[in-house]
């Protein structure tokens, strides 16, 4: 499989624009459930209406149009015609999407100088080389509020699932309304200090779960949270939890909890899909 870089850039630009307004990750989703009453129901209606208005009036779901992250799975036999590398192509797509889509540019060039890059680049790219000849790219637009309340910890093997579930609970309790709940939480256990956060995002991006036992303990503990939608009183602080377990060292048990706000903005491009070729 081979693609022209301009074709890919345009596809990714369209994917960013779609993900900002009507993300694949929230198709068919509703914040309302049958147990809600009063104020919580009203808040859930605001969030459902937010999804509807964004789609109908082509407005960004959230004014924080996020940091762009790409998770790339590139088959070893997949090639580009032309000389540009993938990061260059993806950053061009970000630049054009944020300009043409009137999306807010939120990236600063230096953590202390805080000068805006004015085009929302750079995007952060995670690359994985896979077997075969296909190209799959997940894009995630993630706001600052929920990223700021995510957390990681180097735990010890003896702490087990109970310990991890306690850490997840503490992280979400501390986050409260700050990161715009109901949260979608990605949890990774294993790997190394640097990789565990990326794995937690992968769990979130793919909405995968490979440890039902941990998920059950976590969901049970989360019933004790004392807030609901957007941190106000209620019963719906967490929309869903995804768990990924990863091989690790005999002495280690890294844990990461990535929280995403109610605007879960993820999209997927894949050459396995005929429309993406």
């Amino acid at each position, binding site marked *: 499989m081979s693609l022209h870089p301009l074709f890919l850039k345009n596809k990714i630009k369209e994917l960013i624009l779609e993900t900002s307004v009507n993300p694949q990750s929230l198709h068919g989703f509703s914040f309302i459930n049958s147990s809600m009453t009063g104020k919580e129901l009203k808040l859930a209606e605001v969030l459902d209406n937010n999804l509807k*208005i964004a789609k109908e*009036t*082509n407005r960004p*779901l959230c*004014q924080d149009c996020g940091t762009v992250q790409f998770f790339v799975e590139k088959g070893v036999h997949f090639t580009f015609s032309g000389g540009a590398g993938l990061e260059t192509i993806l950053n061009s797509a970000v630049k054009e999407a944020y300009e043409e889509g009137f999306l*807010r540019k939120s990236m600063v060039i230096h953590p202390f100088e805080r000068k805006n890059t*004015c085009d929302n680049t750079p995007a952060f790219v995670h690359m994985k080389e896979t077997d075969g000849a296909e190209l799959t790219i997940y894009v995630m637009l993630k706001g600052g509020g929920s990223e700021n309340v995510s957390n990681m910890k180097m735990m010890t093997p003896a702490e087990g699932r109970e310990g991890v579930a306690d850490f997840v609970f503490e992280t979400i309790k501390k986050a409260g*309304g700050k990161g*715009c709940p109901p949260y979608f939480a990605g949890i990774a256990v294993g790997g190394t200090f640097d990789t565990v956060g990326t794995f937690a995002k992968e769990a979130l991006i793919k909405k995968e779960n490979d440890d039902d036992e941990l998920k059950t303990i976590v969901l049970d503990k989360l019933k004790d949270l004392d807030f609901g939608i957007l941190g106000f009183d209620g019963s719906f602080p967490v929309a869903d939890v995804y768990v990924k377990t990863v091989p690790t060292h005999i002495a280690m048990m890294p844990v990461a909890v990535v929280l995403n706000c109610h605007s879960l903005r993820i999209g997927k491009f894949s050459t396995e899909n005929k429309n993406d070729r």
Partner: protein
Amino acid sequence: MIDKILSTPENEFLEISGTIFTIRDQSCKFLAEYIKKKKNPFKDENLIFFFAGPTPGFENGNGSIGPTTSSRMVPFFEMLISLGAKALIGKGDVGIKGKDILEKSNVSYLSAFGGAGAYYGKTVEKMETFLFPELGPEAIYKIEVSGFPAIKIY
């Protein structure tokens, strides 16, 4: 509008219609420097400030806007009140210090709904840059809203 806000009981929903000014981290800092040298730039007395940074789409008819975390702006509460603020709108808790300042001056604090950017965008009927256009989304914008929902906290 201010009377309606002040008379709404705590923890009640209300809808705001009228003029509000956006402000956030950098524009608070810039405003503090500005008033050291120049007069109060706000002509009205009953000001409502909204801690927010909009998307640029309002010039294209499809902008989004929503609250940012108010606690970061607490160091500027007294300045905003001295310039005529009667109500502040943002997201989340303002802490004991923030609450004290608000209570002392009889200023209301309202929590808007985080991340409901498209919803709030649709409530904006007019928007103009008021101060510090160089700050982009962090500039102070004067906006006219209609049916802007929030919960009264204090």
